[in-house]
């Protein structure tokens, strides 16, 4: 299992991994891999844990698509790769968040019509 969730709902989260990454990078100027995993863990109070096996392939794909830019810096005796959004990445984040909001709204209407 690549995305670990305390409930057996990792498949639901898996489809949103790119959106989660883009959203975090949109809120922070630049982030490195481990920082992203820790931020997700902190924001979801441990409910969602992104493993390196899921995070880095997603980051590399987003970089290959031209949505992320990379910056390397020397930190604590080692090289650290920081990711930040490109101009296209910022536009894509807005699209992805809109899609996600629409999805949540639709699911809400299906699952709990009173709240929708």
């Amino acid at each position: 299992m690549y995305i670990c969730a305390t409930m057996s709902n990792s498949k639901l989260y898996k489809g949103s991994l790119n959106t989660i990454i883009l959203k975090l990078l949109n809120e922070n100027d630049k982030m490195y891999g481990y920082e992203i995993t820790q931020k997700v863990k902190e924001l979801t109070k441990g409910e969602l844990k992104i493993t390196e096996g899921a995070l880095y392939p997603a980051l590399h794909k987003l970089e290959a698509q031209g949505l992320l830019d990379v910056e390397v810096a020397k930190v604590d005796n080692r090289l650290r790769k920081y990711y930040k959004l490109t101009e296209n990445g910022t536009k894509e984040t807005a699209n992805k968040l809109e899609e996600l909001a629409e999805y949540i709204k639709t699911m809400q209407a299906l699952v709990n019509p009173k709240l929708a």
Partner: protein
Amino acid sequence: MKLTKEDIQFIDQYLENSDVVHVDIRMEMTDHVASEIEAMMVGGDQRAFYFIFKDYMVANKHSLLSNNKSFIKATDKQLSLSIFKALLKWPSLLTFFICMLLFTSLNMVTNISVLKSWVGVLPLIGFVFFGVIYFVQLKWFKLERFSALERMGFIYVMAFHLFHLCWNISNFKKVENNYVVYILSSLALALLVAMVLVVKSRISEYQNRFEKLV
């Protein structure tokens, strides 16, 4: 609590021995493992670095090394796209048209049908030549290996096989009209120019990223 330079080198060496040969992917993994170990130490783990590292790798090695394959796939995708874009740039287009003009003009004054027998072999000779130079200088100067530069060789070989497949299927060797040979040869040379353009841009990208840091 921060790991020492020797601890970092130990992680790096371990990953290199585990077939993570490209420095551009290894440095990210090294940083991830080091950050995890430092967090464990800050969290109260009193054991020495080696024991924490050993337990961490037992639990996470498979997941960590799966990054290597995905990184290489992403690199191939990125490179293919860059080569296609470079093929549409003026140096590649110019190469194509100059070659076409040259072959056509040469054919008017002399018979260049000998090109047919050489056209399939030339790319392979070039590949072996550059491959040998690359690996000799890696060993000689003890240089780091970068993914994009090596994967370019893979794409080159794939392009070469595709070229040969087209060549064999269509049986162009028997075609009397030499223009098919000229088009294929010119296209192969334009592709080579596009690849050189991509390699140049990747080298300067790597230099910008790493030169001032290492």
